[in-house]
């Protein structure tokens, strides 16, 4: 086999290992997928009437459901990558990573296994959330291509945040830290156009919301699903995703290689 074939084979083995982990640790998988669904119900049935009235639509609650789905899709991504961070930290603080490091395997395969496994988990969580949203009465004017584009944008953004979560998991000294740090991303979803229009926010907050990555992604997905124009939002969303992915990837690789030189615990 060539080096490339080995790399692919090792990454596939690691991916299979990570998917098995998700099945063997179902409480976490269910929680990560469940939290956005609970929040969806909360936002539609508890806050939805009032928030929907603010949209000026006739049927407030269902209008808000249509508005908030992109925000909850982003929340799903933020929730799922918390699992990535935890799983990476579990690997790094356990003994098995040292075993991998003393074997002649493609070095990055440990990380790519995590990334691909998390991406699959995130896409599954997104599918579940969309199904639940449809069950609640979510309606979209989008055609198959728009749907595909929306999922593509989400997947790209998720890919970037997963690398970030891998880096956070590598940087964390303990599994607890790794589980807490990605919570910041949760907050960023709320401080974006995911749940309310940024125009309704006070000046300072609005500026922050408009210039942080979750807003263009949320706007792009919303535009694609409602049939509105996405315009510059899509370009900003893609640019943010690629930027975060590259930076997080480089950070993660650096942490992964540096850990090698560290003193044994």
């Amino acid at each position: 086999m060539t080096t490339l074939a080995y790399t692919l084979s090792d990454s596939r083995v690691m991916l299979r290992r990570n998917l098995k982990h998700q099945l063997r640790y179902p409480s976490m998988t269910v929680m990560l997928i469940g939290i956005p669904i609970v929040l969806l119900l909360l936002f539609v049935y508890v806050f939805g009437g009032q928030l929907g009235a603010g949209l000026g639509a006739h049927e407030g609650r269902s209008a808000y459901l249509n508005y908030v789905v992109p925000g909850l899709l982003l929340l799903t991504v933020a929730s799922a990558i918390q699992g990535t961070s935890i799983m990476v930290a579990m690997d790094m603080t356990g003994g098995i990573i040292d075993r991998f490091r003393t074997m002649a395997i493609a070095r990055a395969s440990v990380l790519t296994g995590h990334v691909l496994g998390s991406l699959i988990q995130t896409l599954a969580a997104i599918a579940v959330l969309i199904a639940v949203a449809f069950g609640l009465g979510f309606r979209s004017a989008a055609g198959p291509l728009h749907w595909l584009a929306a999922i593509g944008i989400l997947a790209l953004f998720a890919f970037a945040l997963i690398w970030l979560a891998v880096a956070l998991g590598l940087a964390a000294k303990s599994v607890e830290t790794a589980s807490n740090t990605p919570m910041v991303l949760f907050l960023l979803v709320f401080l974006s156009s995911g749940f309310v229009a940024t125009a309704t926010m006070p000046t300072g907050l609005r500026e922050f919301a408009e210039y942080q990555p979750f807003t263009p992604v949320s706007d792009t997905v919303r535009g694609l699903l409602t049939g509105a124009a996405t315009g510059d939002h899509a370009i900003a969303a893609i640019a943010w995703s690629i930027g975060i992915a590259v930076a997080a990837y480089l950070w993660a690789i650096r942490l992964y290689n540096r850990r090698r030189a560290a003193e044994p615990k």
Partner: protein
Amino acid sequence: MTSVPAASGIVAQDMCKSFDDHLVLDKVSLAVAEGTILALLGPNGAGKTTMIRILSTLIPADSGSMRIAGHDVVTDPDGVRAVIGVTGQFSAVDNLLTGAENLRLMADLRHLGREAGRRRVAELLEQFDLTDAAGKLLSAYSGGMRRRLDLAMTLVGKPRVIFLDEPTTGLDPRSRRTMWQIIRELAAARVTVLLTTQYLDEADQLADRIAVLDQGRIVAEGTPAELKGRIPGGHVRLHFADPRLLHSASELLEAAAADEDQLVLQVPADGTVDSLRGLLDELHQARIPVERLSIHTPDLDDVFFAVTGCHVTAQLSADPAAEGVPLS
């Protein structure tokens, strides 16, 4: 030091390693001939684990040259990784997989192929008495089973050189003996083994050669018999009924050391029957009754305490009575 052909075993020369300002390995050299077992004996913090981590490519040395089965650790780490197996101090198993899945993971990462991989996994499960537990998650495994699985995972790729960092720490006596048996079988199959241990009897039981590591330096090296021979620490302890008898006996036997509190006289002896008979005859003729006696033959404890207590190998024979300082 044993000379080893370049293409086999482990050869390390002048290994140095510091963490921050703390010198952990100070010009350590050692060689392990192919198919033999070397036990690295030392207290906590002596540098044993650091040495294993360097030789198994986990961390770089500051200086020195290291070759494993002919592969240079610095310039050809992947070549080294392809021929070694490492079982670290902390169990390196995947807790969310079953025993068989753990082994299968190793087989896949060693690129054994589907059929060969399956055969090797079945073989190891059998060899390590894990067949019944193969399908169970590791949460159902005992400490001994985890350790066996750990070593089995190390052996999946049939490594030619194996590093074992305290392989029996935390095991019950029975599991420990099983582990010893497995290690002996490895050496019998021409696998080179470098193991670390804090247990002196373990080194004595397993090793062809022992290197005593203390504060980053090898303070003694040789076969178990050689090391024991360097410590004339054998003696007979004579217990007396009252201080008067102890006093008479200690006047009679000049080389002896008396312990007034315990009414014990410690007499240097080489442990042979003749010397013992001579000693008892002498006491008998002087009409000094001995209540009871115990014989203390030199063991690795004596080696260990003597060499780590005074740091310099050459002082060993000059100062046999050197008592060990407390080891952290």
